[in-house]
């Protein structure tokens, strides 16, 4: 590898395949071979876009998605100091949590992983999050997005109450996305959320739509449009 240009397509493939060790190795190799941090980040984002598309198209399932997200996360650990040095910031910031009364976190975790893969900084408030905690986090972190998750039908009133509490505070333009098993577009609209996302793949598409982001920057290969929920 030394002295050669690193093929960022290989890095993409490593992330798509969830090969953590290879993804880290290729990231380090790309850095030392002089690839720009933007180009490496683009490759990672494009890989996670592909993962989201495959998930929405039922080509991969939760285990593969978890493993890809882990490979991305660990490769990102290598890239982060260089991004910071180059002054490259995430494109947006989100606060996310599972609403009060509900402890189910896998859907919320998947959305957080996919948002991170789409260059959105994610502050994860965990599970059983109260309206007060959401409001405090919004004031502290000034996010662009607020993500609310629920699995239990029982906790839909809690989701409504949290949205109401958020609407009573200054959101600074932050937009609210809701999702989870019992949530649908009709419910999302009825409680005054800005958007509904059906699953973790859709959450990226919806977030980008709200934020006016286009996805991976130029230089990354075109992605198949299969299954995109837009």
């Amino acid at each position, binding site marked *: 590898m030394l002295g050669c240009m690193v093929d960022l397509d290989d890095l993409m493939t490593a992330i798509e395949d969830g090969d953590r060790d290879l993804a880290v190795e290729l990231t380090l190799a790309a850095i030392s071979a002089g690839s720009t941090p933007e180009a490496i980040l683009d490759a990672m984002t494009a890989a996670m876009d592909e993962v989201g598309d495959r998930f929405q198209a039922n080509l991969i399932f939760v285990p593969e998605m978890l493993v890809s997200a882990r490979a991305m996360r660990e490769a990102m650990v290598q890239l982060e100091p260089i991004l910071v040095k180059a002054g490259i910031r995430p494109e947006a910031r989100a606060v996310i949590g599972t609403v009060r009364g509900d402890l189910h976190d*896998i859907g919320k975790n998947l959305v957080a992983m996919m948002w991170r893969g789409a260059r959105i900084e994610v502050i994860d408030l965990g599970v059983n999050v109260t309206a007060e905690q959401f409001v405090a986090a919004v004031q502290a972190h000034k996010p662009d997005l607020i993500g609310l998750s629920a699995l239990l039908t029982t906790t839909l009133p809690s989701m409504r109450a949290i949205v109401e509490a958020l609407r009573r505070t200054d959101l600074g333009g932050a937009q609210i996305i809701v999702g989870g098993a019992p949530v649908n577009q009709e419910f999302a609209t009825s409680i005054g959320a800005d958007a509904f996302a059906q699953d973790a793949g859709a959450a990226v598409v919806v977030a980008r739509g709200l934020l006016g982001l286009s996805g991976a920057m130029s230089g990354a290969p075109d992605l198949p449009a299969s299954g995109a929920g837009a």
Partner: protein
Amino acid sequence: MTMTGRERVLAAINHEEPDRVPIVIGASNATGLKAGPYRGLKQLLGVTSEDRYIYDWPELGTILPDEAVLERLHADVRGIFDSFPAATLARNVARPAHSPFIDDWGSGQVEVGDGTWYPGVHPMAEATTIEAIERYPWPDMDDPSRVADVRAAAARLAADNQYAILATPWLLFPFERAFAMQGLETFLMNLALEPEFAEALLWKIAERCKALMGHFLDALADDVDMIKIGDDLGTEQSLLMSPAMYRRILKPIHADYIAFIKARTKAKVFFHTDGDVFDLLDDLVEIGVDILNPVQSGSGKLGNLAEVKRRYGSRLAFCGAIDTQHVLPNGTPAEVRAEVRRAIATLGPGGGYLLSAVHTVMNEVPAENLLAMVDAALEFGRYP
């Protein structure tokens, strides 16, 4: 001619039309009732008996309903359950209030305020090796206190001969037990990253499941109509794993487990699996599943009940299908009636349908809606 509940259920699960669509409420966790609607029913019916819980397990929160309530609900099935080992029960009764409930496998539930408990103790969360599986102190399934009450309870129901008998040992479900041991996300990740470990863990769990199931079936003798096992395989839109991964790893385990059961009883295999499992129905039929539960009708392709019935109606009976995410908790009694009518019209023809809520009737469901479900089932469920 009016049938007994047992005759009605046996006809339906043998794909014949009984006098009316059978009703299943209260006979297991997944067809059970939480305390909210149950207390509402007791009040409406003037029943004053104390609340009891299946598996003597208040933290699970699923009610062992009073017979008077079951009669008003026209419930055609009664449940048989195993018990936690006496030592496990005694330890949990004696433990400090609000501390985690730890079961006989070492996995457990933590309280998250106001009496709600949630799986939160995963004793094998860090395990990734075969050695870790071999080292783990697996539960002793030969403890006689586990099945001490089974023989008499089943024999009593069989002698009464009024209600069909559905028997469920607690969570002898290999995949879900692996979630309990490792945590859902960790185990799903291990399926992809450490498939040999994940598979070995599932086989080890299945071996323990079969050990207890063997004792349980011995105790039941012939006094049982349906044995409930399962594993949640679906999500709202799809599957928790690819069909290929299911077929490679879990299906052989389920096949072996069902063969073990069918070698020991004539009872039908009642398989509980949440979510949209439409793409696995051929597999489940192939390995011997007789009754599918809960037919989560709000999820993905399984929501097309007509297609499910058309393709699988001659090979699978269905138990469930009444929506618990929207209609039962939030609908009006009229909407509940419409939901029942739709499910019966679609799944009922030719028999093969047991009417039940999709999973446990949760706390927020009004008792009135539950009664509306039952009354609609009586009204629309008559066979000519």
